[in-house]
């Protein structure tokens, strides 16, 4: 190799290193359900993040933040893990976010420590997820968090014999456990517990089983999406509603975009949840206005937009705290104990569990100005994740 050529190589190497140091774009990989039956919730991730960026710009501590989206479609852990790997290795993302389904989030968790990448979970709701890696924070909710108040309300409303019907996977089993434990501690009785496969589309037989069990209330959880509509319809059409069996659920079963399809027959369904689009606060009004400005339709807003909006807030904070460098320990330490007023009310990040502490509301489906909404009736203040919290 001649002297000239060698100096060219050296020059090239120097310039490469230089561009490496100057790289000032920080990438955030978002894995969400961008297509398939759950696409609405992935769209809400994007709506929420876009709203945050519209409000606060895309520059943090002198660095440009770029969100890169990947599509997880369905509960498919292997695929989500591959997506996360691709984002880390090829796209060189400094943060991961999103994850709609628990099994998918669980599959990504082992990568975080090795790759030194913090992850903000924006939906997946099994309690144990944050235990899988010290680099996980969650801005959504957990089943325990929403279900413990549901069981208390059930008892207050006079239910004595409850049938539980949940989807047969992590969050469903969490919901069942949380409800059973709380409800029995309050002195109630669980007379039936059905675990429904995620692929169930025909809920008729399950309704018959519940009916025959003599329960006076059903508690249910299914992941927000198409099957919830089928479940509520089966509840009504099999005469359980007419027969006086009450329906109590987490808010997943009555997300706002589904309410028009459930129709007036859904009036009076009770649920406990951390966010209703109708939540009456100046922060929520401003948030919804931001979403609409970004081209979102109000009828399509779900809880994942709020989780994504607050998730983006955490990511900005982490970038600020580390001045854009990759330092996951410092980043996570910066958001522990963080407090702010979210569109859903006052929230904070529990420094122990790295899960969001927030209000849970009891809501009832009501018709206001010709539109079905979840009207908040009662507030359970500052609920921790009852699944992880030391009680």
């Amino acid at each position: 190799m001649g002297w000239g050529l060698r100096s060219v190589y050296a020059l090239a190497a120097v310039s490469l290193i230089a561009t490496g140091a100057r790289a000032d774009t920080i990438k955030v990989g978002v894995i969400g359900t961008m297509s398939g039956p759950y696409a609405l919730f992935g769209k809400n991730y994007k709506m929420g993040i876009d709203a945050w960026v519209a409000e606060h710009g895309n520059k943090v501590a002198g660095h440009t933040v770029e969100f890169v989206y990947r599509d997880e479609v369905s509960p498919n852990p292997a695929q989500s893990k591959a997506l996360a790997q691709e984002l880390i290795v090829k796209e060189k993302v400094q943060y991961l976010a999103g994850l709609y389904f628990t099994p998918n989030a669980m599959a990504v968790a082992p990568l975080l420590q090795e790759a030194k990448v913090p992850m903000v979970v924006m939906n997946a709701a099994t309690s144990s997820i944050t235990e899988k890696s010290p680099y996980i924070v969650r801005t959504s909710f957990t089943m325990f968090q929403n279900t413990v108040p549901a069981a208390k309300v059930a008892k207050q409303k006079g239910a004595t014999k409850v049938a539980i019907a949940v989807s047969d996977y992590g969050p469903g089993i969490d919901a069942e456990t949380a409800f059973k434990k709380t409800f029995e501690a309050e002195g109630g009785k669980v007379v039936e517990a059905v675990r429904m496969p995620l692929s169930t589309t025909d809920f008729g037989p399950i309704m018959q089983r519940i009916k025959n069990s003599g329960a006076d209330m059903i508690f249910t959880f299914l992941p927000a999406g198409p099957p919830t509509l089928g479940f509520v319809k089966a509840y009504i059409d099999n005469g359980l509603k007419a027969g006086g069996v009450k329906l109590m659920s987490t808010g997943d079963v009555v997300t706002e975009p589904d309410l028009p399809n459930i129709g007036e027959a859904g009036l009076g369904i009770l649920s406990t949840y951390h966010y209703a689009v109708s939540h009456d606060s100046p922060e929520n009004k401003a948030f919804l206005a931001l979403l609409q400005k970004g081209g979102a339709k109000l009828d399509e807003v779900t809880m994942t937009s709020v989780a994504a909006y607050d998730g983006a807030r955490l990511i900005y904070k982490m970038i600020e705290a580390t001045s854009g460098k990759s330092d996951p320990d410092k980043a996570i330490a910066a958001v522990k104990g963080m407090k702010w007023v979210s569109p859903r009310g006052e929230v904070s990040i529990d420094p122990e569990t790295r899960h969001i502490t927030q209000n849970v509301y009891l809501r009832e489906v009501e018709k206001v100005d010709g539109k079905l909404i979840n009207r908040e009736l009662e507030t359970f203040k500052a609920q921790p994740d009852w699944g992880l919290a030391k009680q």
Partner: protein
Amino acid sequence: MRTVFGILPDALAYGMVLFTISIGLSIMMGLMRVVNLAHGAFAMIGGYLASFALVSLGVSYPVAILIAVIGAVIISVPFEFLLYRRIYRKSDELTQILLTIGITFFIVGVANYIFGPTSKPIPLPELLKGPFDLGVRMIPTHRLFVIGCGVVTAVALWLLIEKTEFGVRLRAAVDNGDMAEALGIRTQIVYSATFALAVGLAAFGGVVGAELLPVEPFYALRYMVTFLVVVSVGGAGSVSGALAASLLLGLADTTGKYLAPEFGEFFFYVAVIVIVYIFPHGLFGRAH
């Protein structure tokens, strides 16, 4: 007894949905010897058309069914003219499978592109909404309608194939195409008409069965196995076989879901294995 009455009406309704959709496939496979894996896709097209007609055009439920059936048949014409015509009877099964699975993916992609990835509602008319009191239990009114549709379809098809001129021509064209041709039966027309009939039945089933098998872009792939199973259990080409298979499998599936919902479709497939073991050619099938 309460358990039996709890299960039977649901089993009957589910069985009838399976029958209404699968019978078209059974006719194609049994009489025309075409393994049409795109059958579920045509049922899906029917569902989408009905949903679009009801939600966006605001027509009534019966009109929406008509639009779905006629629309699906019209959409299937170019497929029939350009592709299916080449694979009636003579082609080998691998070619048929590759071609029709290709068509399925094509339709799934187009449906996803036009209608988006979410499942589509097919709102029911007031008459079919809500519960109906059978005395022993309440049942969704819509399920009674589905059962009625299944019975009417079965009777009409049996009459058509066994008792009419068209049925005679069809069976002649199938049993010995060249001879039928020589006798002045225009087999190509008979085949095309049968194909249209199969597509129309699929679309009809797709619409009336949408409460049990919701319409979404992966419908065509998700339920195709179920429809194929019904045909293989019943014996291809036999109306009574398809009916018996649908009801039996509907019963197995619904009973399983009632007694042990956490097992999912386990009992459905156990039933399939048992039946196919005892009747290798299907319940009413003929050995070829």
